[in-house]
């Protein structure tokens, strides 16, 4: 023991070591919030630059898909729980919002908030098995949730107010209490929701709640040993994730499409959301926007290429197949090479650029 006592004086590190380490994060942090403000400025300016078509057909679905991606990313990318039920939870949000609008005549913002809460509750219930099962089996159980929810919204006409087309649609524009009949109005409305929910997601992921999720993702047995309430945290992740998905589902129907049936929230939608987060980046908030942009823009880009290079001679069906092929290849590539998606590639590129002048 004696030999160790004499070494204790070295416990305190020289000051310089600490200073260096303190400097770096401050710079990064300022840079990050600067980026955030720049992005907000760009987003706020979009209606002045984009045409009505662009806003309605591209920017609005992009924002809603990014929001849905964020919902799934909180669950899968942060808390490590795989789910193929995203479409189902979006449907719950949409149909619940519809019920609040038509039966209780609530204002649109209130209805959509409550719709999100109902989705959160349903997500919580379907998240309960996560206490017992993991990985592949959990994914299968989320698949069961997807099919069950789809079935419910077809089977019980009450949900679509007995409409003959089995669809739900915005009851009337006035109910919204906000002018969202114009493309600009819709855009700002959605932007407001997306910015608020993004801020909340960032707060959550940087808080103890987010750390608990990531700890469970990385190693759940160790998480329990250090005193994290594993089951409680997992179920919370399901609820929060489903809230986001529910709100996204309601926006999809009532702001983007105007009217839709449960087909809009099929398993294909679940996969689309999953692809967004895989391509954009698991465990990244900005990745959801990147992934959603990619998925909304790729078809347009392909179309553009075929128009300009091949003068529209490529068959639409062929084009769709090309698109599927590109998605498939990219997803496999990202899963193997870069599970943290485009977001990570961008960060790497940025840090390489920032150290580049120092390499000499």
């Amino acid at each position, binding site marked *: 023991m004696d030999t160790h006592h004499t070494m204790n004086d070295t416990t305190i590190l020289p000051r310089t070591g600490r200073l260096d380490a303190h400097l770096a994060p401050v710079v990064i942090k300022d840079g990050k919030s600067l980026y955030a403000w720049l992005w907000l400025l760009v987003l706020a300016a979009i209606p002045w630059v984009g045409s009505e078509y662009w806003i309605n057909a591209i920017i609005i679905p992009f924002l809603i898909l990014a929001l849905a991606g964020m919902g799934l990313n909180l669950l899968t990318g942060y808390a490590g729980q795989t789910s193929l039920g995203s479409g189902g939870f979006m449907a719950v949000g949409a149909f619940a919002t519809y019920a609040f609008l038509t039966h209780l005549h609530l204002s649109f913002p209130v209805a959509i908030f409550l719709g999100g809460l109902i989705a959160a509750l349903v997500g919580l219930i379907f998240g309960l098995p996560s206490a017992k099962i993991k990985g592949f089996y959990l994914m299968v159980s989320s698949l069961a949730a997807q099919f069950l929810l789809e079935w419910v919204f077809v089977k019980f006409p009450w949900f679509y107010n007995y409409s003959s087309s089995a669809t739900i649609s915005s009851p009337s524009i006035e109910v919204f209490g906000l002018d969202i009949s114009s493309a600009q109005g819709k855009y700002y409305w959605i932007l407001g929701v997306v910015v608020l929910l993004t801020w909340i997601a960032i707060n*959550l992921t940087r808080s*103890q709640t987010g750390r608990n999720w990531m700890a469970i993702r*990385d190693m759940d047995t*160790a998480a*329990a*040993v250090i*005193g994290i309430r*594993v089951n409680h945290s997992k179920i919370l992740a399901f609820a929060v994730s489903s809230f986001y998905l529910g709100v996204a589902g309601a926006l999809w129907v009532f702001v983007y499409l105007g009217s839709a049936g449960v087909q809009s929230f099929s398993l294909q939608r679940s996969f689309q959301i999953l692809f967004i987060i895989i391509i954009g980046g698991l465990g990244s908030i900005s990745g959801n926007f990147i992934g959603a942009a990619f998925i909304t823009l790729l078809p347009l880009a392909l179309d553009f290429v075929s128009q300009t290079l091949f003068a529209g001679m490529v068959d639409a069906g062929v084009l769709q197949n090309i698109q599927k092929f590109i998605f498939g290849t990219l997803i496999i590539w990202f899963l193997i090479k870069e599970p943290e998606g485009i977001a990570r590639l961008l960060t790497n590129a940025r840090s390489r650029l920032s150290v580049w002048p120092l390499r000499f």
Partner: protein
Amino acid sequence: MTTLSHAGNIILDVRDISLSFQGVKAITSLSFSVQRGEICALIGPNGAGKSSLLNVLNGVYTPDSGEIHYESEHFHKVHPFQAAQRGIGRTFQNIALFKKMSVIDNTLSGLSRHGRSNFIEHAFKLPRARRESAEFLERSEAVLEFLELQSHRYTMVGNLAYGLQKRVELARALVASPRLLLLDEPMAGMNAEEKQEMSRFIADINRDLGITVVLIEHDVRVTMDLSDHVVVLDYGRKVGDGTPAEVQANPDVIAAYLGAITPGSVH
């Protein structure tokens, strides 16, 4: 042995614990006690049941029979989460860190059980959440400084050298202010210099922070230098229990363990 039984302040008392896996006995009627404030080493050959014993102590395994008295409580079975709540910290033989999280986030995660603010407060950064997060950060930084890890605070632990990962795991356990720290081979796979460094940290934790330590270590010299009390296991049974000097002089221990490894180390 006499010095031990005179000081009456026992923090942990293991009574007649037995554990088996599908009929294979890992621990057989094991009893020993740990004094508050001491460093107690568990030694024994591979497969002796040392790790299993730590797993019983913090609830990862449930013993077939026996009881554990810890502080003023006694229990047969405890959930790992409850063990953490009661102030039992733990590191693992095979590092169990959160690989994709940074050093500081891994450390902060150790404070989870002390958190009082809920997710709504986190979501909106309400005052209590802000205050708590500032406090936690301060506490974590202090621990990183104590363990000389500050310069790695933003490194993803998966990218750290093995020896540093072991230290991060210690930081994560230490940050929660445990009263009893269970360390499973904290120096395994380290070179002599790293072992010295780690021994110094453990001694500091024990002396400066007053935390009782139970550790498993294969390096007999390190163990004998560091610990106040040694318990020797062999095939799930206790074959020695006493001060380092007593244990090294014990013929059963020499036969079972010491003799095979360091024949010349007996003083």
